[in-house]
């Protein structure tokens, strides 16, 4: 069975600066069809995956992601997400997703007040998601962060729900996989680095998988997240193809 190329849309807000990296990894490293979607477009078009990239949309004015959330394209992104479409928000994209109400909680200023830019380790807490199916539970990924507001916070009820429902996908940990306060780069509750929504089709993460995907940069753990999303979509295509094949017999 031939593998159909997955269509990946990368939203570009004024001030996005990881959009081209996400596009490059999607198209050149992963070999899929990627396109940039300007935030003023009323529709995301025919895509299988939407990426909200990192950067400083609208200069982080008011709050990170607060204005981007009202960009014309976001209405269609919300519609797509509510229909089960795969949406990943990376760094500023994660902030936009919380502001848009697609993910619970909020990203506060780092407790150090400093911009944190470094490689660190993430522990995969849930490998049974559309974004981590190519990982193993407990596996460590080495992926960089680069943010000033990545301190995940939610009220205790929401946190309980996230934990009970297995929605915490990544936690910051040390190189041995221990989730410690020293390994927490920003003060996030419970070392949270990434979460998914209730229905499992929207992921937000502060670390940058697109910066750890090209072998030329030595680190390629981020590729597993792209591979997982692509695998998820392609397995759906295959399911449809096999159903069609069955019918025509």
């Amino acid at each position, binding site marked *: 069975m031939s593998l159909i190329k997955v269509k990946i849309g990368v939203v570009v807000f004024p001030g996005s600066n990881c959009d081209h990296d996400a596009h490059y990894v999607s198209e050149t490293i992963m070999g899929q069809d990627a396109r940039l979607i300007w935030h003023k477009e009323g529709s995301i078009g025919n895509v299988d995956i939407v990426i909200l990239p990192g950067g400083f949309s609208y200069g982080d004015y*008011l*709050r990170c992601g*607060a204005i981007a959330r*009202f960009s014309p394209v976001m209405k269609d992104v919300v519609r797509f997400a509510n229909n089960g479409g795969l949406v990943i928000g990376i760094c500023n994209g994660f902030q936009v997703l*919380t*502001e848009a109400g697609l993910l619970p*909680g*909020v990203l*506060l*200023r*780092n*407790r*150090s*007040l400093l911009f944190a830019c470094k490689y660190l380790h993430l522990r995969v807490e849930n490998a049974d998601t559309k974004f981590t199916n190519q990982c193993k539970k407990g596996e460590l990924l080495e992926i960089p962060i680069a943010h000033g507001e990545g301190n995940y*916070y*939610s*009220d205790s009820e929401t946190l309980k729900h996230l934990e009970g429902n297995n929605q915490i996908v990544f936690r910051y940990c040390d190189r041995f996989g221990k989730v410690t306060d020293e390994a927490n780069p920003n*003060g996030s509750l419970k070392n949270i680095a990434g979460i998914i929504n209730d229905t499992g089709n929207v992921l937000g993460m502060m670390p940058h998988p697109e910066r750890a995907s090209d072998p030329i940069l030595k680190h390629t753990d981020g590729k597993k997240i792209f591979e997982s999303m692509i695998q998820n979509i392609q397995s759906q295509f295959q399911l449809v193809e096999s159903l069609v094949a069955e019918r025509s017999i």
Partner: protein
Amino acid sequence: MFHSKVYVTLKKSILDPQGKAVEQGIHSLGFESVENVRIGKYIEMDVDANSQNEAERITKEISEKLLANLVMESFTSTTERIKE
């Protein structure tokens, strides 16, 4: 025409590291008696509305939907008539 002033601050339950840093600065300045320093945002705007009530309602709606993120922030506002 009405003039609204909106003050947005982090909720009391949320640590404000920026406020803490400024508080340390205040102490270094010699004012040891000062505590609970919180940093917030101040936004002002003119609102064209038919009544005080309407102007307040508009201000509140904007504050809740955009100016403050109620997960982490709270706000207070005042609205006054500036001209007929």
